[in-house]
Every structure is written in structure tokens, then in C-alpha cells.
């Protein structure tokens, strides 16, 4: 076999290099906006990567993943409101609350499959949305302003744009690395086997539900981290981050980039959000252009952008 350039890996490396160097560009050109935009992109890429773990590798089409963005965010917001400003408290609580939520709704939702699983995860996320809307003490519908970002005792200053950006990027790359290790581990092979053929996996001795549930909890926890970062980024958290369209956005990022590919969701998030930004500058009906564009990629690029790039390297 002759060695050819692996286009998907090259694209992933390019994107990562771009993300790492972005603050430099921002500083040199004085373009602060691009850094703000990409902080948000990196955080949502982290959320999409966590969704990819269950959706791409585990075959669990969760339509309620944005719930964890809200749970992680509200953990930070509520603690800040009550006077607990330490990130060393806020972040672990955000992760633990997300894990617990994932455990409960996973245990119930994983009794179903297919369309029913999609609907039940959607229903739970909408419940979380309405619960948050009802939290009068924490802003209810209007949301909750966070006056001080998480305090990490001088270790890192989240109010510094560049430091915060690199924190988010480090979290993203750390999570992608973790997912890479997970999918190749014993656990990861079991989860992918279950996606492929659950009956077979049970016949060779795997208790399917347990493995799926643990995978579901890991993905929820990682998305909770994205939620905590997102709340810090916007200095604000509101029920809207949990709305079902946000879950849909995350799904689109994963599918656009390539389900079940490690960097697919990252690329998907970058492309989706940059396009959204550019198109919305041109016209307020940007969704009219975005929609057909997504349709084309889904129709002709099975495996999303990563799948398309893969076909290039095979010639």
C-alpha cells in the first residue's frame, strides 16, 4: 500500500493549529471579536464532542443534550448567586449535577430505542427547560446574570479573554483526547459493539444496558463542563440554553462534522458557527441559506465533512 496523505487527519491538525494560534492573530490585528466568537465555538465544540460519544460511537440519538449545558450553567450561576464564587466548587458541582441528571434520565430513557429514545430524551430536556423557567429566585424566564466569573484563586483568571480562551481550548482538547482513549478501550469497543448489534453483544455475555448507561453518563458529564464554561463566557445563564433547538444545533454540528469521527464534531462546530456568523451578516434570513447547505452535506457527504475528506484521500 502506498502512503497517501490522510486528508481528515491533516484537516484536524490544521484546525487545531488554527485554534491554538487564534489569540495571536487576535492580538496582532486587534480583532477582539474573533476571539469572543471562537471562545463560544470552542465551548460548543466541546459539547458536540461529548454528544458524539453517545450518538456517533454509542448509536444513542439523544435529542436532549443541551440540557447539560443548562445544568452546568445553572450550577455555576446559582452558586455564584448564593455567594460561592470558587471555581473549585462550581465546576465539580456542575459536573456532578450533570452526571446525576444523566444517570436518572439515562436509566429511564435507555429502556426505549429508536424514535422513542429520541422523543424521551427530548421530553426530559424540555422538562429541565421548564423547571429552569420556574426558578423565580434565579431569574426564571429572564435568566440569571453572573456578576463574577468562577474564581480559581489566582491560578487562572477567567476574566482575561486570552486565558479564558486557552482554558476552554485545553478543556476541548483534553476531552477529545479522553474520548479517543475511551473509544479504543475495552469499554469503548463494547459500546461500539452495542451500536452495531446489541443482540449479538448480549449473546456473547455483555449486559448491554449498563454499558450504555455509563457511556450516557460520561457524555452528560462532559457536556456539563461545556455548560459551566458557557455560563462563564456569557456571564449569564437562562433556560434558553436548554431549549430543544439548542439540542438540535448540537446534533447538526455532530452530523455535519461526521458522526463517530474523533474531530468531526470540532470541525462541525467551527463550520456551522462560522457560517452562521458570516451568513447572518449578509442577511437576516441566513437560515434559508444554511438549511439547503446542510441538506447537501448530509445527502452527498455520508459521514459529514470528515467523510467527504476521507474520500479525497482515497482518491
Amino acid at each position, binding site marked *: 500500500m502506498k502512503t497517501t496523505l490522510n486528508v481528515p487527519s491533516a484537516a484536524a491538525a490544521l484546525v487545531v493549529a488554527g485554534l491554538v494560534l487564534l489569540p495571536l492573530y487576535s492580538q496582532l490585528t486587534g480583532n477582539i471579536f474573533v476571539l469572543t466568537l471562537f471562545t463560544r465555538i470552542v465551548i460548543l465544540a466541546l459539547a458536540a464532542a461529548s454528544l458524539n460519544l453517545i450518538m456517533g460511537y454509542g448509536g444513542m440519538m439523544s435529542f436532549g443534550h443541551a440540557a447539560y449545558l443548562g445544568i452546568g450553567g445553572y450550577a455555576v450561576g446559582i452558586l455564584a448567586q448564593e455567594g460561592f464564587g470558587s471555581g473549585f466548587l462550581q465546576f465539580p458541582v456542575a459536573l456532578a449535577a450533570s452526571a446525576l441528571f444523566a444517570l436518572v434520565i439515562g436509566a429511564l430513557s435507555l429502556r426505549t430505542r429508536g424514535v422513542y429514545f429520541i422523543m424521551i430524551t427530548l421530553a426530559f430536556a424540555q422538562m429541565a427547560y421548564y423547571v429552569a423557567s420556574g426558578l423565580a429566585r434565579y431569574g426564571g424566564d429572564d435568566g440569571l446574570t453572573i456578576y463574577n466569573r468562577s474564581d480559581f484563586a489566582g491560578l487562572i483568571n477567567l476574566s482575561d479573554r486570552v486565558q479564558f480562551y486557552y482554558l476552554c481550548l485545553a478543556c476541548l482538547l483534553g476531552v477529545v483526547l479522553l474520548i479517543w482513549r475511551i473509544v479504543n478501550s475495552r469499554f469503548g469497543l463494547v459500546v461500539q459493539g452495542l451500536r*452495531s448489534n446489541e443482540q449479538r*453483544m448480549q*449473546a*456473547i455475555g455483555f449486559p448491554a444496558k449498563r454499558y450504555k448507561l455509563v457511556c450516557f453518563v460520561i457524555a452528560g458529564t462532559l457536556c456539563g463542563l461545556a455548560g459551566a464554561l458557557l455560563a462563564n463566557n456569557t456571564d449569564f445563564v437562562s433556560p434558553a440554553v436548554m431549549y430543544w433547538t439548542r439540542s438540535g444545533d448540537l446534533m447538526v454540528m455532530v452530523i455535519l462534522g461526521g458522526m463517530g469521527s474523533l474531530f468531526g464534531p470540532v470541525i462541525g462546530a467551527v463550520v456551522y458557527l462560522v457560517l452562521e456568523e458570516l451568513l447572518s451578516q449578509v442577511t437576516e434570513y441566513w437560515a434559508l441559506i444554511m438549511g439547503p447547505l446542510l441538506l447537501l452535506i448530509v445527502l452527498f457527504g455520508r459521514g459529514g465533512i470528515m467523510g467527504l475528506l476521507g474520500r479525497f484521500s482515497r482518491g
Partner: protein
Amino acid sequence: MAEPLLCVKDLVRRFGGITATDRVSLDVAQGELHAIIGPNGAGKTTLISQLTGHLAPDSGSISLAGRDITHLPAWRRSALGLARSFQVTSLLLDFTAADNVALAAQAHDGHSFRFLGDARKERGLRDQALAALQRVGLAERAHVLVSRLSHGEQRELELAVALATRPQLLLLDEPMAGLGVTESARMVTLLRELRKEVTIVLVEHDMEAVFALADRISVLVYGRVIASGAPSEIRQNEEVKRAYLGDQHVVVRHA
């Protein structure tokens, strides 16, 4: 007589008005190859599904090595040493042959809540997988995606996967289904080897193969066992002849 390895008592399973399994009792002794035959629709696959735990019986009991397994889920039965092959090939198509077998070995090597090490680089599992593949003659095809294997190779892989769980009892649901003449012959040779090591329950349509391999045969008609005995007894049995073997074209091979 020693206690049978598999003991099925008065098993009943109904689908609406149809009794697919009608008070089936069956003993399979340690070390024997027990064939279950019967015309289409006799309830063979329904029976197998209850033995493996994919279908719950309405009444009756199943025990494996003296332990009641009637209500255990499929994965727990596998842990107790019961392995199966599927009538319609059921493998992980987007995995390689080696991955399929290694996962079966992994399932019986403690729990799989290990999140970091690269499972494909675990020597122990890979060696077991390769040994099982060698056993069925697929060693050279270890790194081929299952979806690219031929039908015959997939049938052999089914067997390798079952073997990798180190079963006490192997339930084979029509392992020759869809195989050509040469492939069938290879499978018979393979089963003849395997039966020396493991107790086998074989559900099969290929009469030539069944009579060549089986120690005992049970005949299932309309969900009921109408006869059970050595191949020579089954051949002589009037009821069986009437219900099944008398049907000339069934006796000749229809592969």
C-alpha cells in the same frame, strides 16, 4: 446416569393462539451432540431463543449444569457457559473478524469498565481471538471487515465467536444455512472436531449432516417433541417417518 448438562422441562411458549413450544422436555448429556430437527415452522428457532434467553417461556423450566436459568437474561447465560450461533448471521459488520472474536473473549475476562488502555493491543485477548479463528480456519482473514467476508466465512466466524466465550454448551442454529456443497462439507468436518471438546445442540435442516454428526436426535413437530433417540431409532420411528422423513424430498439434501 450423570445429571444432564442441559435439562428442559415442560417448556411452553404461546404466540396468541399458536403454541409454538408445546410442553417440550429435553435432556442433553455432557459431551453429546444433540440434534433438533423438524419441518419448517416446527418451532425450532423459538425453542433455541428460549434456551438462550432472547425469549421468555410462558411456563416450564430450563437448567444448565443443575442451575435453573429459566429467568436469567441472555448475557448471564453466556457467562455460565452457554454460547449460540444465529440462524441469520448476526455479527458486528463494521468490525474486523478479529475484533468480533476478541470482544467475545473480552466478555468473559472480567468486566469491561476499563476506559483507557487500548483494547486492540491486549495480547491476551488477541491471542485468544486468533486461536479461535485458527480453529475455524479463518486466521488469514483476521483483519478483514466482517462485511467483506463471504457468507461461508461469516458462518465460520459465528462459530469462532461462540467458541471464544469458552462455552460448556454450544447452541448452533442452522450453521449450514445458505452454504454451498463444499462449504457445508467443511462445516461438517469442523463440527466433527468441535464435538470432541464441547457439548453441542444442533438445529439443522441438512439431514445428511445431522445423521452423520448426531449422537441423539429429537424431532420437533408443531412445537412438540414427537421422538427422541439415537439416529438409528429415529430412522425407524413410524411417527417420525409419517410426520417428517416420509416426505421424500426432505431426506435428500437441500442445501
